[in-house]
Structures are given as structure tokens and as C-alpha cells.
């Protein structure tokens, strides 16, 4: 693990479902709720469409933390996408933990379109947790010279 750095600003990749969490982040924005600007949002149709490959690839390309956020259980626009995501993401998280990656670098949350405040809170907490861990250099591609 790297030493925490005072000026370290974590890079977070956030996969947000189009129907809930992405709208939730919009609500946080229009409600002028303050939260850290570290997360790069990537809108996806549904958390069920998040391949574990996306998460591995985000870490590979330099993310310090990866967030996957979608509709609450029972609210999926595609009925069961988030149920499938729950399973896949559990397996992904277990595998990442297994090889020794800090569990706090990967997070999943349910944020509905009405939960702007919750979205801000999830991002704030996640950024704080990742900041404590310092830069992610285990899975990151090393660019020599």
C-alpha cells in the first residue's frame, strides 16, 4: 500500500445506471449539494450490464477506486438487472479481495433518481475511504519512460 499523501486526489470511476443513479447524480447537481469532484461518471444502461471486465479495466487504466451504482432492488427498469449485478459484483469484489486489493477500493450502492443527497453522501464517503488508501498501484498499468 502506498503512503497516504496530503495532496492526493483519488481518481474514481463511477458506473452509474441511466435510470436511477445517473439521475440521482443530476439531482445532487441541480440541488447544489456539495460533494467531491473526484468521480468520473460513466452512464450505463443498467448495473446488470456492467461486466467485471469494466472494473478490472478501470483499475488497469489508473482508477484509484471504482463505484458501481444503480436502482434499488425491486426498482430495476429491466426488472432484474440489478439482481444479476448484485451477484456478479459480489463475485468480482471477492476475487479482488482474494488477490489482496483493499476492499474499500471497490464499492456498490443503490441510489434512486430521488436520492440526490444519498448520491453525494456515497461519493463523499467513498472518496474519503480511497483517499486514506492512497494511490492504487497494484492493478495499474506501469508506463515506463
Amino acid at each position, binding site marked *: 500500500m502506498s503512503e497516504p499523501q496530503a495532496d492526493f486526489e483519488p481518481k474514481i470511476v463511477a458506473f452509474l445506471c441511466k435510470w436511477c443513479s445517473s439521475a440521482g447524480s443530476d439531482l445532487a447537481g441541480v440541488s447544489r449539494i456539495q460533494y467531491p469532484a473526484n468521480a468520473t461518471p460513466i452512464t450505463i444502461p443498467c448495473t446488470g450490464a456492467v461486466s467485471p471486465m469494466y472494473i478490472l479495466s478501470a483499475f488497469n487504466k489508473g482508477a484509484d477506486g471504482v463505484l458501481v451504482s444503480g436502482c434499488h432492488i425491486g426498482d430495476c427498469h429491466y426488472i432484474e438487472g440489478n439482481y444479476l449485478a448484485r451477484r456478479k459484483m459480489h463475485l468480482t469484489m471477492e476475487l479482488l479481495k482474494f488477490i489482496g486489493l483493499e476492499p474499500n477500493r471497490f464499492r456498490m450502492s443503490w441510489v434512486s433518481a430521488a436520492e440526490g443527497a444519498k448520491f453525494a453522501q456515497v461519493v463523499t464517503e467513498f472518496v474519503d475511504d480511497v483517499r486514506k488508501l492512497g494511490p492504487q498501484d497494484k492493478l495499474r*498499468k506501469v*508506463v*515506463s*519512460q
Partner: protein
Amino acid sequence: MEKILDKKQIDGWVAALTEHPQGVGRGCNAAEAATTTLWEVHTPALDEGIWTYQPANGTARLDHPNTKQSPKEFAFPQREIFFSFEQIKGEAPRLTQIVPKEQRHAVFGVRPCDGRGVPRMDKVFTDHIEDKYYTSRRKNIAYVGLACNKPPSPNCFCLSVGGSPVSSDGLDVQMTDLGDRYFVKAITETGKAMMAAGGKLFADPSAADQKLLKKTHDDAVAYPQRKINDPDGAPAKLRANFDSPLWQEMAQACIGCGICTFLCPTCHCFDINDEVHNKAPLSGQRVRTWDNCQFPDFTMHSSGHNPREGTGARLRQRVNHKFQYFHENFGMHQCTGCGRCVSECPVGIDIVTVVNKVTEHVG
């Protein structure tokens, strides 16, 4: 130069090479030698159950059978960065060539088959066109060989391909294990300089040492090995059997992995890719990596057509390259008989059997 080195003195010799004030290397005169860095010594070491070349850290361990991977990686690493590039919109692209570092490497414990791989790789990378990345590494490498008193692998067949368990081809120094001491022979000028660096650690061989060396070498050559029955006739017969159905039959079990070629001391095919790191401004590196004729996509065209569609055509390419094409180009078999591809194949494809079957096939 022929000397005796007590086994207890090997650490001293390694130290002398890494600490000698005036190292001497290939293409390096005395003045340069005084300013260039010393030898980095590599020795076989057992790591996670496999023998690999590791930095010596003060000692050379020479009790290995043979290393899992051949020492080709020193002159031809699996990944070589050619240059880095950057393009800022509206400006000309900026290229920065990345030249291998000038550092001399002494590789200890090289078996004769792997030693014979060296001149074969030299041919590939210097004939007609010089590959600067290869030669700039190669000129800084010395191979310190270790003769095989008995075949280190049950699938050794060096005698069948013009080699020998006591061959010094491609080596700078040849060592032979005589029990409590090594018989050390300089093969090249670099080798002489390396031995000179050891100074008084080396003793002159007695008549008894010479006699024991001869006996050890004679015994080594007499030790039974696997056999390719007609290596001299192979090129012509492989040519004649190019369209034989035998190929598909023998390659039916092939799974198309890269073990045989990645472990081979003479396989040298590569791929070149641009690894893009940044989209704005566009930057990245052009990188050469090992490739492998057994991968289905090796010959894949962008149209989707694949001229070597089946495993048979791909096995034929590997075998013919070793025993026909290379022979036609350079007058020697490319295979040096280390037996790695035979021992490590997960499905039992055996180049000795394949060559024997094809050369004995009348078609």
C-alpha cells in the same frame, strides 16, 4: 585458456566479475572498460518450483537440470520498447527512440543446447538486416556454459541435431563439473577476459584433470538420448511431405498455446503493437512482444481469412521452420534438441516423433 576452479571459489569469481575495476566486454576496449559498468551476473535459481535465471546476488548456483525458459530473453526480451510517441494536435509527431541500456550481462549455467541457440538467433537478427535492438543487447552479453554430464531432461536430443552435451558453440566460457571442481575453458576473447578477472582463483589443470575432463565428456556423449533418425534427410523429406495428411493427424491434439515456442531457445517470431497511454495529447509506445505460430490468430488476415487454418498447418510451420526452412537458408537445423517443447506440451506433441514420422513417411 583452460583452468581449474574449485567449487568453493565460484562466489569469488562472481564477485570478481561484479567488482573487477576493469571489466572487459565484447566490443569494449580497455579505456572504455575502465568507465563502463561491470558485469551483472545471472544464475539459474529455483523459484516456485521452476528453474529461472535470476540475479546472482553473490553466488552462482549450477546444480540445475535446465532452466524452464531458455536464456534467449537476455538478447531478445519478451517485451522490447522501440520508441515512445506523442502527438499534440496541429504539431508534428514526436518520436523518442528507446535504446537498451548499456549494461553487460554474464549468464551462468547455460546448457550446450541453449548455447547453440545463440548463433542461430544471431543469424536471424543480423543476416542481411541488422536488428539494432537485438545487437545492442547481444554485444553486452556473455554466456558462461555448463556442459551436461548426463542429459538434464528425458527428452534431450542434442546429438540428433548436430549438437553435443559438451558443445561450446555460442558460449564465451565453458565449464564442466568434475565433482568438487570445475574445468573452465575460455572460448572467446570475452571469456578469456572474464577468466582473467578471476585471477588467482583459477589454478592450472593437471594431467589428471585433463584426463578426467576427457572421460567426463566421453561419458556424456555416450549417454543414451532420444533420437531423430534421419536429421540430414529431414529438409528434403519435409519438403516432399508438405501436403501430407500426417500433419493434421499428428496435430489433432494441439490446443494452440504458446508453450513450445515461448520456451524454445531459437523461436524468434514477434508482434509489434502500439500501446496508447493517453488520448489527449495522443501518446504511447511502440512495443515488440514475442508471438507464436501456434496461436490461431498468428496468420489471421484482417479479412478473416486464415491461410494456416488448422492445427496441422501450424504444427507443420513450426517443425518445417526448424528442420527445413532454416536449414535451406542457413545450412543448419534451427532446433538444438533441448527437449523443452516435448516435455512441456500439455497434450504430448513430440517434435522428435513428428520429425521421425514425417521423414519415414513415403507419400
